C-alpha cells in the first residue's frame, strides 16, 4: 500500500483552483486595505432619472467583489474534496487524505444536512432556535458546533481505529501512512498520521470530541443550576444573604483558576476526599432546584405537587447518592461508602468526578453574578409587582416570573460558557490533570504532541484546530443568538 496524498486524484484540478482562490483573495484584501488607507470609499446608490436605483461602483467595490468570488472559489474547492471523497468512497488512494476523511465523516454530513433542512423548513415554528437561521453568523456557529456534536455521537462509526490502539511501527508516522500489515477489514491507513506511541491521530481527535462534549455541556448545566439557585434569592431578597453570597462568589472568583485546579486535582487532595465533599454540595443543587421549581408551581394542587416533587426527590436522590458514593473504592472516607452497593446505580470514575466538580466550582460564581444582576434589574418590573399583589410566594415569583424573563441573556451566556468550559478542560488536559493520561481528550493530546512539536507537528495540530473550531462555533452561535434575541 502506498502513502496517501492529501488531495488524491482530484489534486491536479482542485489544488491549483484552491491556490488561485487564496492568492486572489489575498490580492483583493491588500488592494482593499491600501485603497481604504488612501481614503477611497466604496460606491454609493444613485437615484437615476427613472427613479431606479443604481450602484455606482468604484475600485473599492471591485476589490470587495474579487474577495467575495475568491472566497466562493475556495469554498467550492473544499466542497469538491468532500464530494470527491464520497464518490470514491472505497478507494482511499484516489480520494486522498481529505477525501477519505470526508468519506469517514459521511454520517456527520447526512445528520447535518437533515438537521439544517428540517430546521429551515420549519423555522417559523421553532421560536428563537428558528430565528437563528436568519443570521448567517449564527448558522455558521451552529454548523460548527453540530459538526462536533455529530462527530461525538457517531464516533465509533467514524474513527477508523480505536483511541488507544497502538501500532508501534506507526510511531510519529506522517499523515496518510499505510499500516505495515493491515488485518482483515481494518482501515489500512493512518489518515492524519500516528502520534509518539503509534496511535491514530484522526481517530483520537474524533473520540476526543466525545470526551470533551461529554463533560463540557453537562458541567455548564450544573454550574447554571448552582448559580441560578443561589443567584435568584440573593438578587430578590438582597440584604445579608446577598452580602454573604456575593462575598463567597468573589472569594472563588479571586482564586486564580489554574491554582485552584492544581489544588483540587492533585492526588493528595483526592485522597483526602475533598472533591467528594465538594460534589456532595454541588450535586445537591439540581435536586433542590427541581424540587423548588415544581413545588412553587403546583403548590395549590397538593396531589399533583406531591407526585411530581416526590418523583424529583426520590429519583434525584438515588441518582445523587449513587453519583457521590462509591462503596467499592476503599480509599474514600467512610461517608462515601455507606450507600449500599445494590442501590449504587453507576460509578463515576474518581478522576472524572473531580474534573467535573472543579469545572462546575469555577463556573458557578460567574453564573451567580450574572443571575443576580438580571434579577436586580427584573424585580422592579410591573409584572413582578402584580404577582406580589396576587399573593404569590417568593419562590414562585423568582422561578416562574423572573427566570423566564431572564432567559435571553442566560441562553447566550450558556453557549459562551460551554466554550469557556471546553477551554478549561483543555487547560486541565494540557497540564496532565485531565481525566486519565490515556484519554483522547483534546487538551491531553495537545500536551502529548507538544514535546516533539518542531519536528513532528502533526499529532498536536488536529486536536488544537478541533478545539479552536468548537469554541469558535460556540462563540459565533452565542453571537447569532444575541443578535436574534435583541431583534424582538
Amino acid at each position, binding site marked *: 500500500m502506498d502513502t496517501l496524498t492529501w488531495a488524491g486524484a482530484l489534486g491536479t484540478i482542485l489544488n491549483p483552483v484552491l491556490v488561485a482562490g487564496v492568492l486572489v483573495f489575498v490580492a483583493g484584501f491588500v488592494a482593499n486595505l491600501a485603497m*481604504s488607507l488612501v481614503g477611497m470609499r*466604496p460606491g454609493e446608490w444613485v437615484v437615476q432619472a427613472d427613479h431606479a436605483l443604481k450602484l455606482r461602483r468604484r475600485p473599492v467595490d471591485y476589490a*470587495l467583489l474579487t474577495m467575495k468570488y475568491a472566497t466562493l472559489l475556495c469554498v467550492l474547492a473544499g466542497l469538491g474534496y468532500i464530494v470527491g471523497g464520497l464518490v470514491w468512497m472505497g478507494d482511499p488512494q484516489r480520494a486522498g487524505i481529505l477525501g477519505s476523511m470526508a468519506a469517514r465523516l459521511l454520517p456527520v454530513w447526512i445528520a447535518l444536512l437533515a438537521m439544517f433542512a428540517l430546521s429551515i423548513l420549519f423555522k417559523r415554528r421553532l421560536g428563537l432556535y428558528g430565528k437563528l437561521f436568519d443570521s448567517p453568523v449564527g448558522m455558521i456557529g451552529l454548523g460548527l458546533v453540530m459538526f462536533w456534536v455529530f462527530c461525538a455521537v457517531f464516533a465509533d462509526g467514524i474513527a477508523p481505529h480505536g483511541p488507544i490502539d497502538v501500532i508501534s511501527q506507526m510511531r510519529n508516522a506522517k499523515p496518510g501512512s499505510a499500516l505495515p500489515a493491515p488485518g482483515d477489514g481494518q482501515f489500512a491507513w493512518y489518515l492524519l498520521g500516528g502520534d509518539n506511541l503509534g496511535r491514530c491521530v484522526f481517530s483520537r481527535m474524533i473520540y476526543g470530541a466525545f470526551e470533551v462534549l461529554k463533560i463540557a455541556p453537562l458541567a455548564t448545566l450544573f454550574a447554571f443550576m448552582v448559580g441560578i439557585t443561589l443567584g435568584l434569592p440573593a438578587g430578590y431578597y438582597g440584604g445579608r444573604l446577598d452580602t454573604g453570597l456575593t*462575598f463567597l462568589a*468573589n*472569594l472563588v472568583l*479571586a*482564586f*486564580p*483558576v*489554574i*491554582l485552584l485546579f*492544581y*489544588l*483540587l486535582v*492533585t*492526588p*493528595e*487532595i483526592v*485522597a*483526602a476526599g*475533598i472533591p467528594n465533599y465538594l460534589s456532595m454540595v454541588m450535586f445537591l443543587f439540581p435536586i433542590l432546584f427541581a424540587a423548588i421549581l415544581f413545588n412553587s408551581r403546583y403548590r395549590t394542587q397538593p396531589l399533583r405537587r406531591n407526585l411530581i416533587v416526590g418523583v424529583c426527590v426520590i429519583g434525584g436522590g438515588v441518582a445523587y447518592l449513587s453519583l457521590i458514593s462509591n462503596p467499592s473504592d476503599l480509599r474514600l472516607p467512610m461517608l462515601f461508602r455507606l450507600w449500599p452497593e445494590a442501590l449504587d446505580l453507576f460509578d463515576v470514575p474518581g478522576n472524572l468526578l473531580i474534573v467535573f466538580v472543579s469545572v462546575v466550582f469555577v463556573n458557578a460564581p460567574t453564573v451567580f453574578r450574572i443571575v443576580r444582576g438580571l434579577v436586580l434589574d427584573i424585580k422592579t418590573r410591573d409584572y413582578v409587582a402584580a404577582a406580589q399583589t396576587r399573593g404569590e410566594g417568593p419562590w414562585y415569583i423568582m422561578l416562574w416570573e423572573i427566570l423566564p424573563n431572564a432567559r435571553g441573556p442566560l441562553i447566550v451566556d450558556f453557549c459562551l460558557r460551554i*466554550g469557556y468550559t471546553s*477551554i478549561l478542560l*483543555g*487547560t486541565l488536559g*494540557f*497540564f496532565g490533570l485531565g481525566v486519565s493520561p490515556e484519554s483522547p481528550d483534546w*487538551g491531553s493530546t*495537545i*500536551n502529548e*504532541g*507538544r514535546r516533539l*512539536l*518542531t*519536528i513532528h*507537528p502533526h499529532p*498536536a*495540530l488536529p486536536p*488544537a*484546530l478541533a*478545539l*479552536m473550531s468548537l*469554541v*469558535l462555533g*460556540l*462563540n*459565533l452561535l452565542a*453571537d447569532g443568538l444575541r443578535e436574534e434575541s435583541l431583534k424582538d
Partner: protein
Amino acid sequence: MAFFILRRTGVMILTALCLTFVVFFLTNLAPNLEKLAKTQGNARMSDAEVASWLDRNGYGGPLVVRYGEWLGVVPGWVRLDEPSGQWRGRCLADGQSPDQAPRRCGLLQGDLGYSTVSNDEVANIIGGRLALTGVLMFWAFAVMVPAALVIGILAGMREGSRTDRALSTFSIGTTATPEYVSGVLFIVLLASSQVGISPLLVNWGWLDGGTLFLGSARSAMDDVTFWNFTLPVITIAFYGIGYIARMTRAAMAEVMTAQYIRTARLKGVSFRNIVLKHALRNALIAPFTVIMLQIPWLLTGVVIVETLFNYNGFGWTLVQAASNNDIELLLACSVVAVFVVLLTQLISDIGYVFLNPRIRIS
C-alpha cells in the same frame, strides 16, 4: 471617596485572609504532609514514624495555630530535641536557642519559609522568578493593549460597517483560541524548521538557516531578543486581545450614539476629530476596568505559556511547586497570585470611580 477606599481595602484584606487560609488548608492536608514526611525522611516510614516526624518538625499542632505561625501572628514553635539536646523551631537557625531568635516569623515579618525541594529560602527563589514574569507581562501588555484598543475603536466607530464585521470576527476568533492552541499554531507556523514559513523563507534565501523565531524562551531568561521572545509574548497577547477589543468596541459604539456626538456632527466637526477628541475619552473608561481585570486572567495564560515555552518564571514555579508538593513555595506563589488579583480589583474599582465623573462627583 476615602470611606469607599477604606471599605474596599477592608474587604480585600478579609478576602486575602480567607483565600490564604483555604490554600493553607488544602496544602496542609494529611496526605500532603505524609508525602512530605516520606520524601524528607524515609520512603518506607510506618504511620507512627510519619506522625512522630511531623510532630518533631512542627506539623503536629492544630491547623489554625500553624496558619497563625505561618502568617506571623502566633509565636513560632520551639522544642528541645531529646537525644541531641539542641533547640529546634520554626524561627531558629541551626544551633540557635529560642532567646537568640525572633519569636514570630511568618508572612507579616517577611519570612516566606523554606522550599524543601530546591533547598533554598522561598524569598530567594520567588523574587527572581517574579522579575522574569514581569518582563513577559510587560511586553505582553505592550503588544496587547494598543492592538486591542485600536481594533476596538476602529470597529466601534462605525457600528455595523464592513470593517466592524471583519474586526469583530477577528476578535471572536482570538477569544476562541486559548494559549495552548495559539502557542502550538505559532510554533508550527513560525518556529519549525520542517514546516510552516521558516523552510519557505530559507528556500527563497531570505533567511540563512534556522527558523524565523525560536520555539523556546529559555535563552530569553538571560537576554531578551526579538528572536526568542516574540512567540511567548504574542501567544499571551493573542487570547487577551479579543476580549478587550470587544469591550472597547461596545463602549465606543455606545458613545457614538450619544447626544453630544450628534451635536458635534451637526455643527460640522470632522469625523476624525469627533472620534479622537470627543468619543475616545469617554469610550476608554470601560476598557480600563477590563484591562485591569485582565491581569489575573492573564495569570493562567502566563502559567501555560511559561510551561509551553520553557520560561522559568512565576507560572513555571507554581506548576513545579504544585506537582512536587513543595508546600511553602506553593503557599508563597498563591499569596502572590491572590495579592495580584485583589490589588488589580481594587485599582480597577477605584480607577473606575475616579475616571467616571458621574460617580466621582455624586
